């Protein structure tokens, strides 16, 4: 069975849509409240390696992209989800893996996304005197 079928089987209805623009790149769309189930499916169910989380503000929402590498297949699978721009919040995946601890802190300070259940939400990169509530990767923050 090819990888995208295995993902479909593993995630079931959690995977809303699967898109494969290139042979070695797969994008899986999921609802934000299903993110832990989706991550668990790829990480524990299919043995993927967590690469990183990308947060970005698009026109209508804050998008969160969880990148996983299937090294033996040479394929990168990205879980894509959206949270609302005004009160961005999502369940933390750090209880599942230590590799998410830093990046969730980073997305929190850069975009203002809250990660429910993260054990340590201190700042990671910005200095201590950087003002509260200003998130440099938001669109309204201009250089």
């Amino acid at each position, binding site marked *: 069975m090819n990888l995208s079928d295995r993902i479909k089987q593993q995630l079931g209805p959690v995977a809303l849509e699967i898109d494969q623009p290139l042979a070695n790149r797969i994008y899986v769309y999921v609802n934000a409240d299903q993110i832990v189930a989706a991550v668990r499916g790829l990480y524990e169910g299919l043995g993927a*390696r967590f690469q990183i989380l990308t947060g*970005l503000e698009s026109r209508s929402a804050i998008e969160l992209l969880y990148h996983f590498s299937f090294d033996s297949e*040479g394929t*990168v699978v990205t879980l894509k989800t959206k949270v609302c721009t005004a009160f961005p919040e999502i369940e933390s995946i750090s209880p599942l893996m230590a590799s998410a601890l830093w990046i969730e802190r980073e997305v929190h300070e850069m975009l203002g996304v809250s990660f429910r259940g993260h054990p340590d939400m201190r700042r990671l990169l910005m200095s201590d005197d950087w003002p509260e509530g200003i998130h440099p*990767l938001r669109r309204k*923050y201009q250089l």
Partner: protein
Amino acid sequence: VKKTILPVGPFHPIQEEPECFQLHLDGERIVDMDVRIGYNHRGVEKLSETKTFHQVPFLVERVCGICSASHPLAYIQAVEDIAGVRPPPRALYLRTIVNELERVHSHLLWVGLAGHFIGYNTVFMWAWKYREPVMDLLEELTGSRVNYANARVGGVSRDIANADLAKINRYLEVMDPAVELFAGAVADDPVIHARLKDVGVLSRRDARDYAVVGPTARAAGIPIDVRRDDPYAAYDDLDWDVCVEESGDVFAMAVVRLRELMECSKMLRQAVRKIPGGPIDAVVRAIPPGEALGHVEAPRGETFHYVRSDGGANPVRHKIRAPSYVNVPSFRARAIGETISDAVLIIASVDPCYSCTERLAVVRSADGQAELSGEDLLRLSHERTAEIRKQYGRTKLDELLAKMPPVV
């Protein structure tokens, strides 16, 4: 229990990447630790959104002075996927050659520093003596010792004449026997074993939990290497092996890097022999809307870039994840239970970009404050090696080091 907190870092003028490690000690033993980063945060991701697609490589090759070929390449591969462009074969070979030369100088730099940390300063001088000609070669081939500005979206910016590429072989003639001799001497030296074996062990489970990459992962028995797993540039055309060790200790991390130096040499020789002629650039003008990601095996592990385009002149989002970002937090799993004299070594063993072994203060909870310098931390490590060397007397490695020609 009276706990001592020992902050290591954050600043040193020659460091590329200041970090601060807070070691919580019970006597000499590390019982907990915390890492603070961000001292050198330059906002490259945000800055990238203000540059055109063709300017970004010049920005990201400055993310790190050592991985200045890997970062732009990962970005460029992402943009080429968005544009649907495949660079000409000669360009792919030139990218491979510059990236492998980068790995050679990076690994030699690490070998030298590791030697210095455990008190073999001759190794430090010796390794850097062989590193210097690689920097000279890169300057001759690309125009610069660092920040080569070699790869560009669609190909490479400048051709390298085959006659100049032949100089790489001449360098390898000198490097190969030196690395082989050295690796052989290290492999069964009792003092090196005593200092590096079973120190800072990264279990396979922790390696997966922290999602470490590169030599750090391969030393812990995780056989991943982007060059083989998701091949790019010309790696698919070359015959080489991924170096994997099982023990996950500092020794394994040293062995993996030394073996990789030999693999680099194998790849470079083949690439110089097999490089095809032809154009070096598929001209790319506008980048259509879309998103893509690129990853490249940098000397320290996978570097990851995600790019999104809305069809304009600049990326609207550019995410960068350097290998040290996932390798550094794994110290927590490796350092707890070890002693301070091994701390420098464990921190250095993942080749962070570069750790803060200088400017260190001991803060005692009850009886005031005392200050120790980074040199004191090094001294602790050197004393430990000296003690062990006394037990073993003169070893094969000492014979080899004594025979090395003086460095001028």
